[in-house]
């Protein structure tokens, strides 16, 4: 199930849809003949359980502490935020009934819906919101997500339904940040150490579901919360199974043991079309994630400080070839650091075309020519060669090999090094000890990308690890944060994207589609996917009685 990425900006280990199949299933696994008609019309009814698979087991279910995607996916069904995004990615109230921004744009006042309750029956009030804000900004709380909330100079809960925050100056990403903070119960957490509390394994929330059972190394079972603040979901139980191996996930999907997983392009475009038996019971969906894959240069290293070298490399990479070869066409070209098709994407911008002649000219202008006739361009006797670092991700490895070949054509010698994620980040990214990386950004919905591109964000562990520094971009990013009018913000970020494309500190490679596969017993899924993705209305999904698995029938 997709959830809105509420983290400011996290570099993602795997892009959505980057899942790769591996395993040992024979072709044509025996399929018992079934007379169930999955395509028929069934009325909406409550009950049943939906089984999902995740690769890792969450370390806990307090999202601000746990941080990993497995935890936020489960926690998103347990906790509410003050605000949320609707299917068209517009903000609307979740726990809040409404919110007002003061005329000076520095204060936001949230009014909570009346009569809200926690799953244990206790009232949910603005005191809980205040408590959560105190937690996330507390220096003892080990969370990477505090920065947005530390900007708040004053937070108060004057009455049980009112929560008010004040910023020293207007802060445009504020509302987005409040859609990302899941409210925790004060009455259960007060006086406890949030980093170690037993609550992380035994959470009590206010959303559609509550924890029923957590079997270590096996599964988490959620059951419907009778006190849910947003009404009742149709499906009784959500089961999340931990299946680290994607091949096993795919086998389980084929064997009807799980209901949904994210496919890779090969499974989507090659295996499914060849298997009518799978098509008859499993529905395929396609949604563009809010993320892209890029080739990033270390701008502090020669020769990448030279814009001509960066542009030459950009011209020499055939992005369409990457989309066709790596994603089997299931991707979109990118020219702005935003999801293609959204308002923040500058529609005038086009990716650098594949043009080797131009690339060679640019290299020449930068002083790189093949003087010694070895096929590699050189300058002052030094050949132009570098290493592309990437992590163990099949799509990125394949992209690197394709890029390696294209750069060879213009006389650049590239080696590829594939690293395990933890050592990649710890040993190379945080120390800045790299020339070129092939990575992805997974973005929040707010267009603010201060932390990735602002020149002040270059300390070890911060996100501007490529060392990008452009005074004009710095000032645009600063202005973008202060501007609350969406139209004026759009102009700012369009100019930002234009400069970024021209500067070419990174080469945008592609934005891949997420390819969820969901068993056809699950009904009520929006297809085609709305901007928020198919997961936006999971509470409306239902499983007709006739299609349920493993349930005792009374007939």
């Amino acid at each position: 199930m997709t959830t809105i990425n509420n983290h400011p900006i996290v570099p993602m280990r795997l892009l959505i849809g980057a899942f790769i199949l591996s395993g040992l299933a024979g072709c044509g696994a025996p399929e018992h003949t079934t007379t169930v008609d999955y395509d028929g019309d069934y009325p909406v009814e409550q009950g049943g359980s939906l089984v999902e698979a995740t690769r890792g087991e969450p370390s806990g279910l307090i999202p601000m502490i746990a941080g990993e995607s497995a935890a936020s996916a489960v926690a998103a069904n347990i906790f509410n935020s003050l605000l949320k995004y609707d299917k068209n990615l517009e903000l609307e109230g979740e726990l809040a009934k409404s919110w007002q921004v003061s005329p000076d744009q520095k204060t936001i006042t949230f009014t909570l819906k009346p009569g809200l309750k926690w799953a244990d029956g206790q009232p949910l009030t603005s005191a809980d919101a205040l408590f959560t804000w105190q937690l996330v900004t507390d220096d003892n709380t080990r969370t990477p997500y505090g920065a947005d909330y530390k900007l708040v100079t004053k937070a108060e809960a004057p009455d049980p339904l009112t929560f008010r925050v004040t910023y020293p100056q207007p802060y445009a990403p504020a509302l987005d940040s409040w859609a990302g903070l899941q409210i925790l119960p004060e009455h259960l957490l007060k006086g406890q150490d949030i980093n170690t509390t037993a609550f992380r394994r035994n959470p009590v929330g206010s959303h559609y579901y509550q924890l029923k059972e957590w079997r270590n190394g096996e599964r988490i079972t959620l059951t419907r919360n009778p006190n849910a603040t947003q009404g009742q979901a149709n499906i009784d139980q959500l089961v999340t199974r931990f299946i680290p191996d994607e091949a096993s996930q795919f086998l389980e999907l084929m064997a009807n043991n799980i209901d949904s997983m994210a496919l890779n392009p090969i499974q989507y475009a090659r295996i499914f079309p060849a298997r009518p038996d799978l098509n008859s019971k499993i529905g395929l969906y396609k949604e563009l994630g809010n993320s892209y894959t890029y080739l990033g240069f270390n701008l502090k290293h020669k020769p990448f400080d030279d814009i001509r070298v960066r542009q030459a490399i950009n011209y020499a990479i055939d992005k369409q070839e990457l989309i066709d070869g790596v994603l089997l066409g299931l991707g979109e070209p990118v020219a702005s650091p935003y999801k293609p098709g959204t308002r923040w994407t500058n529609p005038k911008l086009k990716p650098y075309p594949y043009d080797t002649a131009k690339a060679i000219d640019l290299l020449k202008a930068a002083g790189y020519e093949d003087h010694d006739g070895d096929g590699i361009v050189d300058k002052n006797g030094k050949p132009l060669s570098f290493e592309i670092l990437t992590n163990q991700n099949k799509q990125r490895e394949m992209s690197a090999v394709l890029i390696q070949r294209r750069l060879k054509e213009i006389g650049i010698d590239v080696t590829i090094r594939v690293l395990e994620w933890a050592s990649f980040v710890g040993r190379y990214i945080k120390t800045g000890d790299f020339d070129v990386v092939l990575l992805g950004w997974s973005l929040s919905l707010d267009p603010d990308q201060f932390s990735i591109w602002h020149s002040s964000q270059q300390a070890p562990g911060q996100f501007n690890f490529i060392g990008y520094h452009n005074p004009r971009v710095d000032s645009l990013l600063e202005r973008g944060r202060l501007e609350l009018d969406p139209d004026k913000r759009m102009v700012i970020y369009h100019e930002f994207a234009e400069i970024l494309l021209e500067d070419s500190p990174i080469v945008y490679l592609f934005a891949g589609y997420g390819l969820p596969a969901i068993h056809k017993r699950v009904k009520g899924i929006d297809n085609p996917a709305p901007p928020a993705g198919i997961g936006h209305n999971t509470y409306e999904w239902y499983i007709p009685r006739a299609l349920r698995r493993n349930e005792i029938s009374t007939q």
Partner: protein
Amino acid sequence: MRRDLVIKALSNPLALVGFVIILGILVVATLAPYIAPYDPNAIDVKAILLEPSALHYMGTDGLGRDVFSRMLYGARISLLVGIVAVGIATAIGVVLGALAGYYRGWIDVVIMRMVDVMLSIPTFFLILAVIAFLTPSIWNIMIVIGLTSWMGVTRLVRAEFLSLREREFVMASQTLGAKDRRLIFKHLLPNSLTPIIVSSVLGVASAVLIESGLSFLGLGVQAPQASWGNILTDGKEYIQFAWWLSLFPGLAILITVLGYNLLGEGLRDALDPRSANKNK
């Protein structure tokens, strides 16, 4: 090795099979540039994951590269890694084993404790740990495999030296005033050659396996260079419908390892009078 021994070894049918296999791989690896129908690293995104056909004898991989061509070049890697790694291991093993067996005393104690320490760590994990600190490359792999698999040879050579030293012909030579160097190189080493050769041939088999294993884990030969191990890794992703990516490299590794093992065991049976008697 004496000619009659070679003939004797190859008269063992299993050894002959092994020999033919190894010879075949040697020929294929040497002639790879002439046999290969395609450039092993030529990418063709319009020909991704094609089934084996007259155009691509072993199909194509996830980037449209010709698997048959990649297999041929992979054979070179396998062979090279096997031989160089075992060469290093044997050189170290012979030197240390000779020192320990000939001089005995504290030299022997020191060397054998070193062997014990090395043997107490599972070789593959030791290699994994070392490779993690180095840039993965074919040269590093050969060196690391060589540096971590000399213990068997050392023990073997030491044992041979210990027993040979007490033999009459060595004593005779010693009494006639032969120096250490002469004793070692003229008498002890030539007479220890048989077990060294046998263990080297068997060692190649395990080096080939280790290289494939490392490449399979992504720590071996690096892209775009082909090795059987990394073709196999690519195949793992698509095993449900692209069987050719797993079958051919898997078979190649199996047959090669089998070949070295058959040859090694055949040689042992043929060259070692004790085991020859036992078997017949």
